């Protein structure tokens, strides 16, 4: 069956179906004498539920951190709510029904109310209320919990999983999650990724029909596939894949706490790219030494208005604190063109990639640029933040952007607000024009970071979103490689460091070339970090320089690629 690949990895194991979505709740009429008894039962169930929530909160805080545990605090509040608890009691008294049925009726009413709300966030809160209600009902009905059945490692199969489901599971025994509902951003997916457990979600209604308890199942979290009672051939294939995957992971684990350095001991800065706060943990877990590209767009997306300075400050502060003394390069808003924000009413353009975007936009929109810069500067005293401007194509733009920073610095000083006065300012190098004048630019910045995705697009004049010409969008094109070399040379001539934050930085084939032209910093998604760290340790300076020299003399992208394949270690 096919679903959404929500968390990578492969698992083969016995299935365990979590069915309790449909706990049978008998509705019994009770006599006047029984009312008191039912109310006592209710209160004892509420107390037990609160106790188990308290325990869940503590174990989740220890396992996944305070933030993930907060949900259970909210659940506890529901059980102490001065509106909800009397409503349970009233239902039992007035309608003379058993406690479980009374709880169900009240909860259903709240769920219906929240489900009807316009706000997405509140609509989803309906699930929390149902979750809490089911907990109380299960205690009242004495229904066994799925965890009781988990004697061995299992693949958990369910309609969907709630926060308390996943927190209750002994996750050390869970091989994988498969759910009928959900998307990449649903609770199950996020939780699975942060726990590093493979998951396939959104498989559809057929899942629970086809699945049997205790039967063999293969979960491919890389491709979103699930196989029930697989054929011998499929099983063999996946057993092989699993073995490879585990071996690879184990081998790479060795590099986690190792310094990123070449065979001859030259230290290289190996850092992660991040798009939101959830990316922090994976970067640190893979031994990333900081962040080479923090895309701030997420702060502006999926909403109806601009984020305030205060909101941004909190996010930047959190990132600064989590990485402590490790560097975090924050790229100012890179929006416009293909990345639209509906509430800003961007006009449609003929050539969005060449249009009104990124720094060109920020420089003209003071009300957007200023809060962002202020928030970054204010957060800078909590860690090691750096500012990076996207899409710089001329010295004028750089100077204007730096002027804005200086104006804000003066303002902050006048207001008596602390910030890091030495904060480094750098630029993305992603336009060929910037490469050609990089000797001048380098005199006025603290660092360069090469954005290969756009640099390739602008150099080869190939739209990177057009599938028909996708093959031409390659970092191996000799023109791109020369521009990379030129950028680094110009940077080094002015004693500034040069990094790379495009996909090419995590390209296993390109690595010896980049080491050979002496790139100082490699920034990539967390999943690539360990592999690249391992490869780095296999090259020494002289070897890599020879590779770079050879590559720069090759004439086509094809030649470059096949040469790099031949010499790959």
């Amino acid at each position: 069956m096919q679903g959404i690949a929500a968390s990578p990895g492969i698992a083969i194991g016995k299935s365990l179906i979590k069915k309790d979505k449909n706990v049978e709740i008998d509705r019994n009429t009770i006599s006047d004498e029984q009312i008191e008894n039912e109310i006592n039962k209710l209160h004892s169930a509420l107390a037990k539920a609160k106790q188990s929530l308290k325990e869940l909160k503590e174990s989740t805080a220890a396992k996944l951190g305070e933030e993930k545990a907060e949900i259970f605090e909210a659940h506890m509040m529901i059980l102490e709510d001065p509106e909800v608890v009397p409503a349970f009691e009233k239902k039992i008294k007035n309608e003379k029904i058993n406690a479980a049925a009374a709880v169900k009726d009240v909860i259903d009413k709240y769920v219906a109310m929240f489900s009807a709300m316009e706000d997405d966030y509140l609509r989803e809160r309906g699930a929390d209320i149902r979750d809490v209600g089911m907990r109380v009902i299960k205690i009242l009905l004495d229904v066994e919990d799925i965890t009781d059945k988990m004697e061995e490692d299992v693949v958990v199969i369910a309609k969907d999983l709630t926060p308390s489901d996943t927190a209750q599971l002994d996750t050390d025994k869970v091989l994988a999650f498969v759910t009928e509902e959900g998307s990449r951003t649903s609770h199950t997916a996020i939780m699975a990724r942060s726990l590093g457990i493979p998951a396939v979600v959104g498989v559809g209604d057929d899942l629970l029909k086809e699945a049997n308890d205790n039967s063999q199942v293969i979960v491919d979290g890389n491709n979103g596939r699930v196989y029930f009672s697989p054929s011998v051939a499929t099983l063999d294939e996946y057993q092989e894949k699993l073995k490879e995957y585990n071996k690879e992971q184990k081998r790479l684990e060795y590099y986690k706490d190792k310094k990123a350095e070449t065979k001859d001991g030259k230290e290289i800065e190996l850092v992660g790219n991040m798009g939101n706060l959830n990316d922090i943990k994976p970067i640190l877990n893979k031994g990333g030494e900081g962040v080479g590209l923090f895309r701030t767009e997420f702060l502006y997306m999926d909403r109806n208005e601009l984020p305030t300075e205060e909101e941004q400050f909190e996010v930047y502060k959190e990132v600064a604190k989590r990485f402590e003394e490790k560097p975090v390069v924050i790229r100012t808003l890179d929006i416009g063109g293909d990345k639209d924000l509906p509430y800003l009413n961007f006009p449609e353009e003929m050539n969005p990639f060449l249009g009104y975007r990124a720094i060109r936009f920020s420089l003209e929109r003071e009300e957007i640029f200023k809060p962002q810069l202020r928030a970054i500067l204010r957060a800078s005293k909590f860690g090691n933040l750096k500012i990076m401007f996207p899409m710089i194509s001329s010295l004028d733009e750089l100077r204007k952007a730096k002027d804005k920073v200086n104006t804000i610095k003066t303002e902050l000083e006048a207001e008596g607000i602390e910030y890091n006065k030495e904060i480094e300012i750098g630029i993305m190098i992603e336009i060929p024009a910037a490469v050609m004048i990089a000797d001048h630019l380098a005199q006025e910045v603290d660092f360069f970071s090469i954005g290969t995705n756009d640099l390739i697009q602008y150099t080869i004049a190939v739209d990177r979103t057009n599938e028909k010409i996708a093959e031409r969008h390659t970092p191996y094109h000799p023109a791109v490689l020369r521009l990379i070399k030129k950028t680094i040379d110009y940077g080094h001539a002015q004693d500034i460091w040069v990094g790379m934050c495009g996909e090419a930085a995590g390209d296993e084939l390109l690595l010896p070339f980049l080491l050979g032209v002496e790139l100082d910093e490699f920034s990539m998604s967390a999943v690539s970090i360990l592999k690249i760290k391992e490869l780095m340790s296999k090259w020494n300076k002289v070897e890599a320089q020879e590779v770079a020299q050879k590559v720069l003399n090759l004439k086509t992208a094809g030649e470059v690629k096949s040469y790099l394949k031949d010499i790959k270690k």
Partner: protein
Amino acid sequence: MIILAVKKTVKIKNSTGLHARPAALFVKKAGEFESDINVIFNDKEVNAKSVMGVMSLGASKGKEIVIQAEGEDSQKAVEQLVKFVEYEMPKENESSEDEE
């Protein structure tokens, strides 16, 4: 005992409105007072000490709510809750759990 009814209007400034975490904190704060406290929004009136009630208002950013209290510490309750909505709530760090 002197029963004082106090009433005040306040505008919500934080972007997530009176939802989830801010709502929970608001309710906790309300629980610190003896008075009966209500929140009124869009003709709907709920118990300020009930997180279900407060969340069910769906009061979002830019909207005005009325906080009304009756009891011995009603003056203090309204003052502090208004202050909470105006100054403390916007400081709340917002969860970014759902963004990817």
